[in-house]
């Protein structure tokens, strides 16, 4: 079984997000890049499948972006147990999901993966399209929001999360592209041995060029307007608590 796991470097939750002078992207110099959360679950799922099958299966981490932001992502994947890495180096600011998926597909096509796993969406652009687009472009079956997987009889069975607490099992033949929901497993931490071993693993760098004819692009980023008249409460803890008590008691009347 040959499994590709698409991972992405995204700004950490704590990072300060500032619009840069182009107004179409953020100031990356003040951002700490980390692995997109649901991608960690996707990698763990792939590693568990490999360990369960134990028959020369291979897990390959794949990412796209600039060298600076993504090197940590690949190192992390290799340290956790991926066998090799593919890095599509690209400094473009093109944010078109279809252009991005085409570049991935062109470079993954000849690998003939049985499975492509991805996180359900990236916590930066959040289109949630890449895995499904690649699946279609490479003629694969697709499923999204997988919360459990089971490999059997040359097929993959996936428990898909639907809305409002509903679920559904779907069965796909290989090759298949499946997006993974967070919470599906417990992602491992890299071991010291894994970290040391990662340096010896193959990491292929491809110079990638996104289409100069994107189907859609950002015109400008902006800070969302507050939808409500929000009252700010800050200061020392005693003051905050007193204010909250007043609101709960006298304004909202939820306590007497």
């Amino acid at each position: 079984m040959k499994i590709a796991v698409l991972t992405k470097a995204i700004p950490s939750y704590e990072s300060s997000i500032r619009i840069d002078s182009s107004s179409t992207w953020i100031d990356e110099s003040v951002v700490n890049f980390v692995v997109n959360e649901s991608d960690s679950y996707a990698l763990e799922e792939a590693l568990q499948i490999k360990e369960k099958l134990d028959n020369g299966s291979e897990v390959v981490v794949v990412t796209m972006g600039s060298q600076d932001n993504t090197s940590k992502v690949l190192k992390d994947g290799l340290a956790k147990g991926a066998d090799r890495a593919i890095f599509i180096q690209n400094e473009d600011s093109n944010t078109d999901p279809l252009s991005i998926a085409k570049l991935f597909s062109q470079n993954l096509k000849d690998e003939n993966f049985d499975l492509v796993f991805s996180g359900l969406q990236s916590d930066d652009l959040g289109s949630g399209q890449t895995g499904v687009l690649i699946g279609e472009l490479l003629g694969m079956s697709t499923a999204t929001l997988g919360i459990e997987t089971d490999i059997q009889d040359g097929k993959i069975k996936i428990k898909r999360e639907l809305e409002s607490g509903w679920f559904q099992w779907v069965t796909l033949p290989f090759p298949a592209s499946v997006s993974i929901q967070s919470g599906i497993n417990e992602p491992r931490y890299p071991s010291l041995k894994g970290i040391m071993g990662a340096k010896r693993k193959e990491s292929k760098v491809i110079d990638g060029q996104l289409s100069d004819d994107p189907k859609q692009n950002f015109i400008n980023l902006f800070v969302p307007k507050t939808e409500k008249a929000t009252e700010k409460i800050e200061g020392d803890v005693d003051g905050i608590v007193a204010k909250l008590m007043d609101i709960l008691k006298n304004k909202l009347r939820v306590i007497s």
Partner: protein
Amino acid sequence: MILVVLENQRGNIHAFSKEAVAAGQSLGSKLGMDVSILCLGENASSLKEQANDYKSKSLILAEHDMISAYSADGYSKVLSDVIKDVSPKYVIMGHSYMVRDFLPRVSAKLDIPFVSDIISVTYDGDSPIFARQVFNAKLATNIQPDSSSNTTLLSFQSAAFSSDEIELGGSDAVSVFEVSLNAEDIKSSSEPEFQESASGVDLTTADVIVSVGRGIESQDNIPMVESLAKAMGAEIASSRPVVDMGWLPSYRQVGSSGQSVSPNLYFSVGISGAIQHVVGMKGSKNIIAINKDEEAPIFEIADYAVIGDLMEIVPKLTEELQK
């Protein structure tokens, strides 16, 4: 022409699809375009009956045995064929889990843009500009799809439009689209939808909800929030990361994959306000949010934004409430 596609949700038109009808009609009137409504696949005839009163140029019915149950393979193939046949400028759906599952495939099949999870529309003359949230809702972006594209796919986030805005008046015509599918078109198979361990906790009827997010940092701190909930006579709820870590059971989860609530008071503790959570609670009548990050997106929808350390505020507030 604008084509709105209806989604079946266990026998009824999905709530997001109704909002998509309102979105389609709004775009149609701004751009001077007709609106048609497509009833596709699963339960299509019944959806058509339910959509009879909506004002539209035509109601299109696309049915076939092989799409009588949803599959990404079947739906993406049939919708692509419909688009090739009727050439709509825009195809509009609600941003549901089903849409995320199959609409990107239509985008790739036809090489056309799909702008997903749109929160609002503005106009630059005759050309619409779509806004969507990025960077975990800390920012938003305006997107203009390539105008040379014959068709653009759009999905709208819940509550971007209201189903109250749907214009009634019925349809001028009803037509049937001849679906053509072969066995090899559908490679996947699916089992019936099911609900897991329907627990006794119905958060939707709670008057006050105390909800906890990843800011709580550790399972050891959950009892602290439980005490606060108890002191306020509230139900406890959470955002997704807390459930993923196993700190609270999944039936406590509020958001797109959990329950949707609209209590009198939603008291949010250490929740940043990712889109997936906010869609499940933004209808709350009053929202108090505690977060140490002044830029947390939850503050955009909060009535009271408490900027501070929950580890200090929550125990003290609980103590005051218990007095």
